[in-house]
């Protein structure tokens, strides 16, 4: 029985390396696009380069980085909580709820609600409603169990999906087109104010989630196992469910459903770097952002001046890769 060589890269090294890749992507990706942008003109704030760069490219890249990170972090979280390597941000129904809320506002042709873009309000409201329903349905004697969350989440997921299909088949004209467009998931330029709120949310949630890294490791081995190692199951389940739901709903509100990144990145990081959630989660957050932002960049250059939605690029590249990974590892 030989021993395998111990990994020589220190755990923190992987996190720093991911952070470097993230920073590199944040600086580099905005320069790529259908029209070339000159550094001199941007620095001199000369239009059209300067406004295109700042208003479109940079905000879009930042949104891709943050949304991809949120989906990936939630993927890691739900996979550990449910001990299911196929769990995605979609699994617990919240994403479908957010999507339903957004589709509803598109179908009703609402532009603004409460002074905010209606799609955001719709997604957040949809997510909140589903969160309460799923949590309520799976709580029993004051306890939340992963299995019950999973089953009620899947049930609610199908119900919401059914409603989305129903609405899109009833709605006609350009609204139907905008629903289809939205459901594909795309990274578009958003206001810096929205980005700032989203960024604050992602940072807060990441801190809360990542400081519980050891707890997620325990949960990934089973609830009974985690409980007798001293983990507070109830608190972990509630914290994990709420944190994952909040950033997923926020990400969906801004980009549409691109949850696939939340399946592929955690698996990629697990197979290359570590299963330990203390390393996995920060790396997945950073690299998931890079992956989505990169997919978005690819989507805006391959068919330029037309654009492929980031969600489609992600599925086209990520799907085959995942199949290959599964063939190698399972």
């Amino acid at each position, binding site marked *: 029985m030989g021993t395998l060589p111990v990994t020589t890269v220190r755990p923190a090294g992987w996190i720093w390396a991911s952070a470097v890749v993230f920073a590199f992507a944040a600086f580099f990706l905005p320069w790529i696009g259908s029209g070339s942008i000159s550094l001199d003109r941007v620095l001199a704030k000369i239009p059209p380069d300067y406004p295109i760069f700042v208003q479109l490219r940079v905000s879009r890249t930042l949104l891709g980085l943050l949304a991809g990170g949120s989906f990936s972090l939630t993927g890691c979280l739900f996979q550990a909580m449910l001990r299911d390597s196929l769990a995605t941000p979609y699994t617990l129904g919240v994403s479908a709820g957010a999507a339903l809320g957004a589709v509803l506002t598109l179908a009703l042709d609402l532009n603004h609600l409460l002074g905010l873009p209606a799609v955001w309000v719709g997604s957040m409201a949809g997510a909140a409603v589903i969160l309460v329903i799923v949590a309520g349905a799976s709580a029993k004697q004051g306890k939340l169990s992963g299995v019950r969350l999973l089953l009620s989440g899947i049930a609610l997921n199908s119900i919401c999906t059914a409603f989305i299909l129903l609405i899109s088949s009833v709605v006609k004209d350009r609204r139907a087109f905008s629903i289809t467009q939205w459901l594909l998931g795309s990274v578009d330029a958003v206001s810096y104010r929205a980005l700032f709120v989203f960024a604050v949310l992602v940072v807060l949630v990441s801190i809360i989630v990542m400081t519980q890294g050891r707890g997620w490791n325990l949960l990934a081995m089973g609830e*009974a196992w985690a409980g007798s190692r001293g983990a507070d199951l109830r608190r972990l389940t509630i914290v994990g469910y709420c944190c994952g739901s909040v950033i997923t709903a926020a990400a969906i509100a801004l980009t549409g459903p691109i949850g696939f990144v939340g399946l592929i990145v955690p698996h990629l990081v697990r197979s290359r770097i570590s299963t330990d959630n203390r390393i996995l989660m920060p790396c997945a957050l950073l690299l998931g952002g890079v992956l989505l932002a990169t997919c978005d960049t690819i989507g805006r250059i391959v068919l330029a001046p037309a654009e492929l939605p980031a969600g489609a690029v992600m599925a086209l590249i990520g799907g085959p890769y995942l199949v290959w990974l599964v063939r190698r590892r399972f």
Partner: protein
Amino acid sequence: MNHRLAVRDVSYQYDGHSVLNGVNFSADGGEFIVLMGLNGAGKSTLLDIVAGLRVSAGGEVLLNNRNLSSYSAKERSRQISHLPQGTRADLPFTVRQVVLMGRYPYADSWFESDEDHAYAQDAMLRMDCLQFRDRLYATLSGGEQQRVLLAACIAQCPSLMLFDEPSTFLDVHQQLQCFSTLSELAREGALCIAVTHDLNLALAYCSRLLILNQGRLVEDFAAHKAAENPAWLSLLSPRLHMAQTPEGKPWVHYR
């Protein structure tokens, strides 16, 4: 009345029907207790209640004269480790990572301290799994996995250790190794309680037997007195018969 563990009149209901009914016993460090009974007799439930994973419907559990429900989760798990049945890891954790999980109640920092690593190392050495510390837990055989989980429980340094069918999936030699380790842990001062269905394994290693029947604790005797009144065997099966090993120890054979 100073016992490490005192179970007082514990009862438990599940979906309206009674699983445990007025269970009473107390135990101290150094004892290795085997809990037996037919399937559904309430063994795992009792173990879960003693572990603090389930709250009993009636009665109380005292650990070091203090009600178990007054312990925080971390406080409790510095005292009690529980090895549940059927722990699987679908996600690719290494053996070292699994054993280090036993140090959860001690570490506050992001990563485990050198001390935690030292405890894990000792536990792996003891359970003979140090040689595959960097392998993936999921790729080990059932027996090797069980040793890794036991190592995690040992790394937890508890004074009360609970094992739910620890020798399931082990080959005969590993079963013997497992039970002699448990009795060794008890000799070093821990209180060990294990559920098993293997009568002879229990009689060879444990110091005391508890038998649950339909949620009631019906027998409680020292292992060396097992042969004195073998009527308890009929609680487990009518086909059991008490005999003796050549050394004069009790031995159960089947008819």
